[in-house]
């Protein structure tokens, strides 16, 4: 070995790295998300990857929809012929914050062991802890390839304001998908919204993608612990319960009573979802909320909703459902305040059971595909 040899090794190494980097950037690195050990080496997850404390929850949040679906049990091979496939999209209440997978709405519906049209009803939890109709639409769009027979879509007013549509990280980091949906359904959202992240050439290189690639890899590794333990989130022994005392503020997303401005609510996104589902029936549910009896509860139902705004939105929903022939269930008040956990929309297992008791009846009323 001499110094010239060492110099050549370093130069060649750098050149090879540079070349590999450029090739990597030229192909679509995001497609790597489809490569997954889930559903092959170990079981798919019962719900989407989500979590901040990975070393405790054996889970993590990422924005790669391919990887999220590939890690989900719904991607476990073709749909069985004897399966009546139900998907539930929605926010954190569907995903099941503080709930074990079997305690969520999907888990409880599966536990009942329902069947329809001679097929076993299998319910898939496709909720994700971000409250935005645009996110739901994006998930629904992707999920349609898994041939659902029925879509259950619990929503809440907080998912409707226009400022909630593009701001959540999972939406912002899927700009291409979002732009496509905006164009396809002529949604009144700006495809050039600065919130949407458009990766450049550098972002697509190996160095630019290092965090994304690391996340994809960590997702696979934590999949082993998910399979080994069944744990996909942390369950604190004690947590702060949902607020029941409020101040006198009654504004809602800068809207003042008495009129809720419908033009600032993303009904178009909701309608796009119903349209996207095509022939697949969709059950829209106004999900249960905490109805507080604490201080200033005459002004607010909970920390999310002033009464005036929520009441008006419910009226709008009912009117639009009737006019549009939506399959709409207003279940906003079926769960007592004691069955909420750390937020105005997160239910206890018993609360989820109450909800499931209503939803399973609706599922069984569906006509055969």
């Amino acid at each position: 070995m001499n110094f010239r040899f060492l110099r050549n090794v370093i130069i060649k190494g750098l050149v090879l790295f540079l070349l590999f980097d450029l090739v990597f950037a030229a192909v679509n690195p995001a497609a790597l998300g489809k490569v997954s050990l889930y559903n092959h080496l170990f079981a798919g997850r019962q719900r989407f990857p989500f979590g901040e404390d990975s070393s405790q929850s054996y889970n993590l949040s990422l924005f790669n929809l391919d990887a999220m679906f590939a890690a989900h049990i719904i991607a476990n091979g073709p749909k069985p012929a004897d399966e009546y496939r139900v998907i539930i999209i929605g926010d954190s209440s569907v995903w099941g914050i503080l709930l074990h997978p079997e305690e969520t709405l999907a888990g409880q519906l599966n536990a009942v062991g329902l069947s329809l049209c001679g097929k076993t009803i299998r319910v898939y939890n496709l909720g994700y802890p971000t409250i935005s109709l645009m996110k739901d639409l994006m998930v629904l769009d992707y999920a349609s390839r898994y041939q659902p027979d029925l879509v259950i879509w619990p929503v809440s007013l907080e998912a409707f304001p226009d400022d909630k549509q593009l701001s959540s990280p999972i939406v912002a980091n899927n700009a291409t998908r979002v732009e496509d949906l905006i164009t396809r359904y002529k949604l009144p959202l700006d495809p050039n919204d600065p919130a949407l992240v458009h990766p450049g050439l550098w972002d697509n290189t190996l160095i630019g993608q290092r965090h994304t690639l690391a996340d994809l890899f960590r997702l696979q590794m934590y999949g082993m612990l998910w399979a080994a333990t069944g744990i996909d989130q942390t369950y604190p022994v004690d947590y702060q319960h949902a607020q029941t005392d409020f101040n006198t503020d009654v504004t809602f997303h800068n809207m003042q009573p008495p009129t809720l401005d419908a033009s600032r609510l993303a009904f178009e996104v909701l309608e796009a979802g119903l349209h996207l589902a095509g022939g697949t029936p969709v059950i829209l549910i106004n999900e249960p909320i905490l109805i507080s009896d604490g201080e200033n509860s005459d002004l607010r139902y909970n920390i999310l909703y002033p009464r005036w705004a929520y009441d008006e939105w419910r009226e709008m929903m009912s009117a639009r459902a009737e006019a549009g022939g939506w399959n709409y269930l207003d279940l906003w008040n079926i769960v007592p305040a004691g069955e909420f956990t750390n937020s105005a929309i997160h239910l206890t297992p018993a609360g989820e059971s109450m909800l499931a008791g209503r939803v399973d009846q609706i599922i069984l009323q569906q006509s055969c595909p």
Partner: protein
Amino acid sequence: MTLALILVSIVVAAMLGLVTQNRWRIPLLLVSCTLAVYAFQPQLPVRGLDFWLPTATLALTTLAWILTTPREQRSWRINWPAAVILGGIVLVLGLTRYLGLSPHLTASRPPQTLQILAGLATVAMVAFLLTRFTKPGKSVLTGAFVFIILIFIVLKVPQLAALVSMALRSLNHQSTSLALAQDLRWLGFSYIAFRLLHTIRDRQSGRLPAVSLSEYVVYVIFFPALTAGPIDRIERFVGDLRRPLALTADDLGEAGKRLVLGLFKKFAVVDVLAMIALNGTNALQVRSAGWAWVLLYAYTFQIYFDFSGYTDIAIGLGRLLGIKLPENFKAPYLKPNLTQFWNSWHMTLTQWFRAYFFNPVTRALRSGKRPLPIPAVIFITQVTTMVLIGLWHGVTLNFVAWGLWHGLGLFVHNRWSDLTRARFTALSPHWQAALNVGGVLLTFNFIALGWVFFALPGLSISVHFLRLLFGLV
């Protein structure tokens, strides 16, 4: 150690190796190593302790040099630069408290200058008294040996460490209720203690070469090997140190290879394995024997790559500085029996225990008036050696259990190989190869099962996990 610290170490080592002329080599190494003792020390909740512990490292090392060096070799005329460098660095680091530097070179803001001056004066006084009034006689050296062992015991017994933390917190007017054993994390003390004990014992037996203060300090706190070894021998180390430094392409190539390999092991392989490796939490969560084995194997490889990665980095850094540190690992998981495993796992530690415990005890047991039978000697020495190695990691029942596991394993293997050696050598090469493969698998799994005690925090959880591994839960 963080990646940033390792990268800084690489840059420093490369600069020292490539730039410095030979006459400045040892002084600059002394400065770098002394600064590293402070820089590597993690922040501690007891006020000022993360400054005082590195200072205590320097004080202990200096005093040990005085005790282990013949009077005629302790000439002030030769050694004053090293003493001034050491004292000067402590003082200058202490003065950085007034510079408002962030981050400090020390883990937190250094204590008040007056306290540091008092500390330095105390060390100087003790050094003066030792120089003036003691000869490095057997009893003094034995006293020093016992003193270092006592510090070690205090640090490694959680209850004692917590008590000391409580006392230090009380002195500092900090809450004693928050005292924890981890408050006394003294970076590198385990390895420093081994080096000091080695020089003291070799001085007692007359094998220690005469070295200057700067050479001695650089040997004890050589920054590449400060946190995780390897434990070199002073005569070999000083031989390299005194040799003129002329880095060749081979040195640079080997250093680069070891550094890249070490960084890859430490920050790619280990970080990945750490996600799924066995720990006190997932041991109670895992639901099936199959997955339990996956977690255990992940830990088995994690601990190997972690430790051998550090060793690669240390060897690479050493090579840049012209020091060929000894190897610590030699494909240990590919060995066909436990004896060979322990000849290739953390080799410098086992060599240390062999030299300073196993061999002397064996000699003592076999050379008395009524020597014990050989199997009894082997049993006693192997079990006690392995239990001591276990206790070196921490004075807990789990480390005792781990030591017993290996001690008994070594004894059984020793007896078995004695019984079967003749038959084994009579076998055809094919059969020998097949038995070797079987031996590798058996040994690997035996070692992996032993890691259960090492990885988990208590005996009951260890037993639970072992039962789970064999489908008994």
